[in-house]
């Protein structure tokens, strides 16, 4: 039985060599979109160069995230063109930024908008403008395709993220009681998107305890229910239930009444909306223009950015509000604003894991993981066949103190986070290292506002939301938490206020000014 043994051994040797090359693919990647250095310059009161020129322009929008872009969209839509939008990064979009490689576009942070209810008037107006909502119907291809979500628990996948398998009778009872409670809260009409529309003082007692404590009061102690609610709070607020105001925990569930199976999503996540907005207002946007000082001196308002000193009538401050004390002279430190650090990673996959499990799904979540799972960027493709794809991996550093987590986020190197991400994925996909060729990681120290206990009804927050003076705040964090609809609402409301103010005595003068949108 030694026949052709030599050639057998050779072929076996080749196949072994081939296999061994396959087992250790190199995973490349780096940190990307780092912007905290610029932020730290402000924090450390760095000295910036003196401006070389002065530009008079009626309105300056600070910050090119969804709030700033929405303000711009509103101004432009109302025929007002005498403004500029200054964005610190080289790409507008803020938490809705996106990336693109040879496979697909992919999100860097916010990746969906829940199908807006009737009260989200401005969001519906935007989607009508973008052709997503036509004659009261949602355009199918912008809605998340089936199958939408899945959860890995007890060694298997289930459809949907709300745990449905392995529940005891007591778990089921508690889920049902929780749903009944939410239903009752929803019926009050006091929990709405945007939150300001329904916000009522008689719900303020809910803001005085944590969501975890509220659940304790309701005698809801099911481990699996707590996991689910913690997941939801981590996902929308970057916080655990014991650090989230009960009001916000309830808001998450009670504010939404979708009349269509959603959410709305795109390969590049909410970057798709940014792209559409930039098609409309891109000519007003100036990127890589970090505003480093805003001074109000009697009747003169000055905004310093790069080598230019802007002299606007009004400023829409759409950047995160925590930056205000570092930028605006005379603004005191803000106490009721806390932010969650986040990490997102985009993983390039050469092929799906062998045990992917069922049909490709948009959002995959693992129970008992500190991370939020991953979203498949090619899920919204119209193709029937996809070989390579990009997964966006989300990780809100929710447990522990935000400042310590921020420190850990910034001090650990790319390799540390790469390994942490792969370890988490390996629990579900053991061969993930054979599939991934690249991992790019984005670290965000202040990714989103946390609706901590007392933050929703804090006088500080409510004072900043009142639009008065010449500097109007507009970031989503004014709502206490950072979601698309809140950002858009704050941006539009600020823009409307600007239009009302300027249409008064100065109106004629303003409109006689040449349009500065595209001039440099």
């Amino acid at each position: 039985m030694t026949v052709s043994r030599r050639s057998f051994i050779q072929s076996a040797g080749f196949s072994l060599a081939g296999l061994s090359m396959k087992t250790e693919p190199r995973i490349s990647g780096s940190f990307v979109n780092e912007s905290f250095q610029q932020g730290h310059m402000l924090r450390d009161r760095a000295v910036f160069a003196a401006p070389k020129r002065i530009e008079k322009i009626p309105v300056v929008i600070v910050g090119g995230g969804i709030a700033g872009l929405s303000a711009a969209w509103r101004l432009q839509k109302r025929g007002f063109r005498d403004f500029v939008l200054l964005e610190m990064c080289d790409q507008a979009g803020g938490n809705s930024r996106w990336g693109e490689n040879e496979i697909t576009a992919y999100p860097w942070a916010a990746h969906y908008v829940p199908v807006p209810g009737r009260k989200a008037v401005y969001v519906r107006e935007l989607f009508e403008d973008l052709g997503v909502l036509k004659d009261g119907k949602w355009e199918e291809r912008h809605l998340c395709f089936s199958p939408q979500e899945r959860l890995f628990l007890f060694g298997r996948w289930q459809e949907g993220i709300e745990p449905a398998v392995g529940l005891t009778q007591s778990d089921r009872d508690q889920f049902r009681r929780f749903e009944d409670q939410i239903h009752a809260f929803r019926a009050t009409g006091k929990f709405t998107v945007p939150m300001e529309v329904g916000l009522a003082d008689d719900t303020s007692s809910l803001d005085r305890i944590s969501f975890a404590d509220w659940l304790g009061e309701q005698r809801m102690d099911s481990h699996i229910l707590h996991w689910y609610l913690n997941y939801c709070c981590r996902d929308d607020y970057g916080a655990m239930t014991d650090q989230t105001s009960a009001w916000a925990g309830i808001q998450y569930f009670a504010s939404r009444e979708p009349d269509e199976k959603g959410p709305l999503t795109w390969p590049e996540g909410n970057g798709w909306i940014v792209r559409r907005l930039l098609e409309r207002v891109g000519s007003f946007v100036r990127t890589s223009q970090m505003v480093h000082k805003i001074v109000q001196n009697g009747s003169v308002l000055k905004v310093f950015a790069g080598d230019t000193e802007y002299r606007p009538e009004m400023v829409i401050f759409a950047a995160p509000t925590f930056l205000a004390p570092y930028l605006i002279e005379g603004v005191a430190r803000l106490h009721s604003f806390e932010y969650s650090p986040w990490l997102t990673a985009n993983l390039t996959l050469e092929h799906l894991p062998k045990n992917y499990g069922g049909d490709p799904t948009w959002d995959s979540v693992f129970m008992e993981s500190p991370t939020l799972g991953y979203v498949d960027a090619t899920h919204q493709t119209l193709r029937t066949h996809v070989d390579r794809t990009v997964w966006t991996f989300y990780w809100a550093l929710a447990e522990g103190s935000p400042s310590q987590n921020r420190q850990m986020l910034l001090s650990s190197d790319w390799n540390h986070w790469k390994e942490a991400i792969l370890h988490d994925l390996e629990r579900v996909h053991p061969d993930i290292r054979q599939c991934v060729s690249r991992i790019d990681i984005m670290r965000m120290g202040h990714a989103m506002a946390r609706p901590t206990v007392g933050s929703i009804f804090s006088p500080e927050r409510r004072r900043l939301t009142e639009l008065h003076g010449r500097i109007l705040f507009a970031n989503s964090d004014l709502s206490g938490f950072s979601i698309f609809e809140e950002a858009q609402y704050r941006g539009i409301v600020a823009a409307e206020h600007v239009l009302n103010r300027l249409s008064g005595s100065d109106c004629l003068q303003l409109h006689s000014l040449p349009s500065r949108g595209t001039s440099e």
Partner: protein
Amino acid sequence: MGILLFITVLLISACGLIYELVAGTLASYLLGDSVLQFSTIIGCYLFAMGIGSALSRYIDRGLAYRFVWIELLLGVVGGFSSALLFLAFAYSQGFEFLMYTLVIVIGVLVGLEIPLLMRIVRDRYQFRDVVAHVLTFDYLGALGASLLFPILLVPHLGLVRSAMVFGILNAAVALWSTFIFANQMARTAVLRFFCVIVLAALCTGLAEAKHITQAAEDNIYADEIIFARDTHYQHIVLTRFKDDIRLFLNSHLQFSSRDEYRYHEALIHPGLSAIAAPRRVLVLGGGDGLAVREILKYPQVESITLVDLDPEMTRLFSTNPMLTGLNQKSFLSPKVHVINDDAFPWLDSDAESFDFIVIDFPDPTNYSLGKLYTTAFYKAVARHLSEQGLMVVQSTSPMFARDSYWCIAETIKQAGMLTYPYHVYVPSFGEWGFVLAGHHEYTRPATLPAGLRFVDLKGLPALFQFPPDMAPLSMPPNRLNDQVLVHLYDQDWKDISH
């Protein structure tokens, strides 16, 4: 004595190689990726042989007696290996585990054979002669086996019976070893008794092999596989039984050459004949060229665009003589333009308009294919339909998948078209359904192309009648964000099979 001994070497060498080739071929047939299968099987097998050779040194008494037992064991394990693997593939999840277990067991036993045999005969010959002769016949046997296997065994006996024939040879070697080494062993009567039992079992197996393969392949492919290829997109299998050629894509029957004319005539003519002056036709899917063959029966059609994802598929049906015989070389017509692309994005990127659009996709077995049966998809198709144009959709069986069929009809309606569902009996499929749709009311054709074997004017109205067991059901539409069809289809076929 000498020649008998060396024939023994030749035979056992051939048997060992055959079992290995059987495992490799079976794995390549059933799992695809033949390079990987052969490589890993050869690797495991050689490694196991090494283990066997190493173990041989621990056998120090009763060499001949144990040699006979090894031959008998090999006869049983090797002889039944192929049948076992077929059954395991058809009825269990453990095919690969069983395959590697068998390969390792056989490898260990084969690894024991030659060292033992050499030690048994070392007293009769000089050492250098033993080595030279044994290895010479070992190599010769393997050469014979490797030539016999592809030329005679696989085409004429098949994998199951080939393994059994060589199992019988192994058992026969065991039996005559009890004679040629009679002076070196005890209890030869007991050994011979077992040899006879094993031989009888293998002969029965050989006689019954047809039933075994049928039982196993009923769950896979009923007929002989004449072509199998893993393309980038799917697993293409062609089978033939006498004059019946069948195409399977990912194990789903696409057509049987005996009755595909019923399917394709019914797919094309009720719609295309009803259009006054059809000039431009679009076919989505249909990479077998059989629908195109029917469309080419209309001389007034000037161009046929066919969009099929898999270039291997359209190439196969453009070049393989047996297959171009079926589609009458339809892809070679200058009117036909083949585009290998995914249909949905292609529709989005193209602006042409067509008088007749044929949609002939695989059934909606998963969410990826399900996208091609959504309101969004049919709206995209409708944008390409000329004012008086019609489209026709292969819509699964209104009999076996009644919910799915009426769900597809409802989906097309919700995409804003008038729908005209009809059905046809195709023996190899059973009752099969189509949906005609357009912007305007459909009137049945007054004439049909000459030479049709199934569709005729008299029979046409009956196609649009649905008896009570296939009658319309109220179903929700299938939408990209709510693919009810995949669930319905899954449930429909589960209900049928239980």
